[in-house]
């Protein structure tokens, strides 16, 4: 299949390109930008007039729920969702059942994903066996099997000695360790940000200090071990300040924020809206504003969906009993655009946070358009709209705080390795 994407506005943040150029694809690779290679005859021509043509999006956290939670979602359903969202590369957190702590499991996951031939998956291996925080996982073997980094997902290591050793061991190989800043024994019975809303609603609180205490520990251990850190799902202005200072100090540290925390705050809990039961909790408006500004000025490197399909049974319960998380992979592009509009950023700068930046954190060549690169492309209409409804979401998880909203941007085509895997209905 040879594809000619014509008349589109090509935006490639990795190469600072934003101009009208045609794109030529053959054998799954980009073979021409601006002009066709000699002898190129397209078998399919896509007219992208008035549309944006950009690298397929890269998502740093998408739970596909396999293995172990197939009743919540399957690779098939979530890959469809990724395609509808223009997302062509996914990092997968290790909190499956069993967790991704064994090379065989990782190989199986990669094999299943490859067979589906949709988005590329980048498994993040479990840092410790069964995520229990006691024994190290076979990191080198896991990398051979396909893991790109190591993480504890939402389960912090209680024993600091183990965390120290895990970081030392990872640093031995230069592997990046992804850690969500959660203090293991502080505010762990909480369900909402410890502030005015939780006080008013009588919800047990999770103090901001649960994030900062963890960050103080992680950063100090990174100093001691030389480990490369990626801080996942920042939620507070205070936590952000610690990461900013660590970066300024010269530590090799990156960080991300989720679409939920970028746009929402504790106020959105309203009358116990279980869609807003998230981990980390939605914090104050001040925190949200700080996260938005930090993503704009580059203190926060990437935006992710933190896609977590959850079934209705786990959400239609009282707030504190609800499973934390929300579906989101289809909302990554619209919510990035919404944020970018709010901060008057160029599309190029907006897309940088969901393409090349997360790709670099993964250590992948994805997220850019260069000659000879894998042809993973997203074509979208920046003037279009995405309406978030249960019916339109492809993900098996229908629960998100953004239900009912009209968001900017509409994905028209998603191309993976030179094949059109999604076309706007």
């Amino acid at each position, binding site marked *: 299949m040879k594809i000619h994407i014509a008349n589109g506005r090509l935006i490639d943040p990795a190469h600072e390109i934003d101009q009208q150029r045609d794109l030529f694809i053959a054998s799954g690779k980009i073979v021409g930008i601006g002009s066709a290679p000699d002898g190129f005859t397209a078998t399919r021509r896509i007219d992208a007039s008035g549309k944006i043509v950009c690298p397929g999006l890269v998502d740093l956290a998408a739970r596909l729920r396999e293995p172990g939670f197939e009743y919540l979602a399957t690779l098939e359903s979530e890959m469809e969702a990724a395609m509808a969202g223009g997302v062509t590369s996914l990092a997968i957190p290790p909190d499956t059942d069993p967790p991704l702590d064994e090379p065989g499991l990782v190989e199986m996951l990669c094999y299943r994903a490859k067979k589906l031939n949709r988005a590329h998956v980048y498994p993040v291996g479990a840092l410790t066996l069964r995520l229990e925080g006691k024994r190290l996982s076979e990191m080198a073997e896991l990398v051979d099997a396909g893991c790109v980094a190591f993480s504890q997902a939402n389960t912090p290591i209680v024993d600091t000695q183990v965390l120290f050793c895990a970081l030392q061991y990872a640093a031995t190989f230069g592997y990046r360790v992804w850690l969500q800043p959660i203090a293991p024994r502080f505010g762990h019975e909480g369900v909402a940000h*410890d502030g005015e809303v939780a*006080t*008013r*609603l009588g919800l047990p*609180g999770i103090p901001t200090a649960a994030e900062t205490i963890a960050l103080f520990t992680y950063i100090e251990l990174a100093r001691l071990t030389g480990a490369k850190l990626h801080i996942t799902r920042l939620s507070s202005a205070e936590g952000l300040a610690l990461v900013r200072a660590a970066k300024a100090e010269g530590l090799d540290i990156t960080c991300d924020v989720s679409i939920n925390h970028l746009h929402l705050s504790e106020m959105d809990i309203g*009358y*116990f809206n279980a869609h807003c039961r998230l981990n980390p909790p939605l914090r104050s408006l001040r925190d949200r504003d700080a996260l938005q500004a930090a993503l704009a000025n580059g203190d926060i490197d990437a935006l992710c969906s933190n896609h977590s399909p959850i079934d209705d049974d786990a959400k239609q319960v*009282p707030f504190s009993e609800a499973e934390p998380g929300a579906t989101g992979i289809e909302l990554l592009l619209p919510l990035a655009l919404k944020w970018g509009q709010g901060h008057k950023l160029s599309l190029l700068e907006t897309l940088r946070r969901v393409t090349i930046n997360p790709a670099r954190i993964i250590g992948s060549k994805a997220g850019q358009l260069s000659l000879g690169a894998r042809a993973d492309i997203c074509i979208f209409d920046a003037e279009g709209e995405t309406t978030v409804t249960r019916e339109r979401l492809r993900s098996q998880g229908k629960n998100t705080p953004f239900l009912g909203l009209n968001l900017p941007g509409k994905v028209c085509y998603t191309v993976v390795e030179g094949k059109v895997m999604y076309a706007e209905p």
Partner: protein
Amino acid sequence: MHNPQLNAHGELQHLLSLDGLPRDILTAILDTAEPFTEVAEREIKKLPILRGKSIFNLFFENSTRTRTTFEIAAKRLSADVINLNVATSSTNKGETLLDTVDNLCAMQADMFVVRHASSGAPYLIAEHLHTTKRHDIHVINAGDGRHAHPTQGLLDMYTIRHYKQDFTKLVIAIVGDVLHSRVARSQIAALTTLGVPEVRVIGPKTLMPTDLDKLGVRVFHDMREGLRDVDVVMMLRLQNERMNGPLLPSGQEFFKVWGLTPEKLAVARPDAIVMHPGPMNRGVEIDSAVADGSQAVILPQVTFGIAVRMAVMSMLGSN
């Protein structure tokens, strides 16, 4: 945001929380309760208002006392009362909260009185009734987690109005474990809505929730400072399981510092009244000399509680 407690006409559809209820509705409930206090003095303590209505006491958390007060109120209004102790029945068999509600709706329930250990559970039920278009079924929150206990808050307001008439000239102190108290949250919401100029809370920092001052109260840690010249002292119950652990060293120490004794009460106004939602822990939060003393209005609170619950049920039944 849509207030799930009010119907399209701004009338009370459910009673879920006192936070967010307009002042005129709070006052209307207290006014409606007034004539109901007289019913208890009749030979036949029964009114035909809810004759033929089925009220389900849906208690996911055991509380014989609260359940009984709702049961008496409903029976004095001639309703049929069905007590469901869900804590020991269906939910343990895997039935969800909303399954239970759907089942009871199929039995033609008219009203649910809900007690649940999780904050917000009655909201979930009210929202479910709304989305399934069962607008003729009403929910009364009989206590949810740490969130709200609106009928307790209302009976406290009734008691204060009975003894002090005008809310707008009072200084009121709430004493004890505010962190875990749904009663305190309902009291604070009602007192601030009804225009009490100074609401104080007194207790150790471990039992004060974050940003409490944003709810419109002054926070004190010292009893003698906090009780000075107050008109009303509202004591909170300290649960046994909080007494020895990371929050408090012991019940004895709590009593020594924050227990209401005649000596500490002496700094309040001489005509100050003392309230307690019950059941009391004598010698932990309150001294017997105060509990049984002339300033205590703890038993009248219980009596008024029936009238207030009758008022709420009759108003919901007619909206």
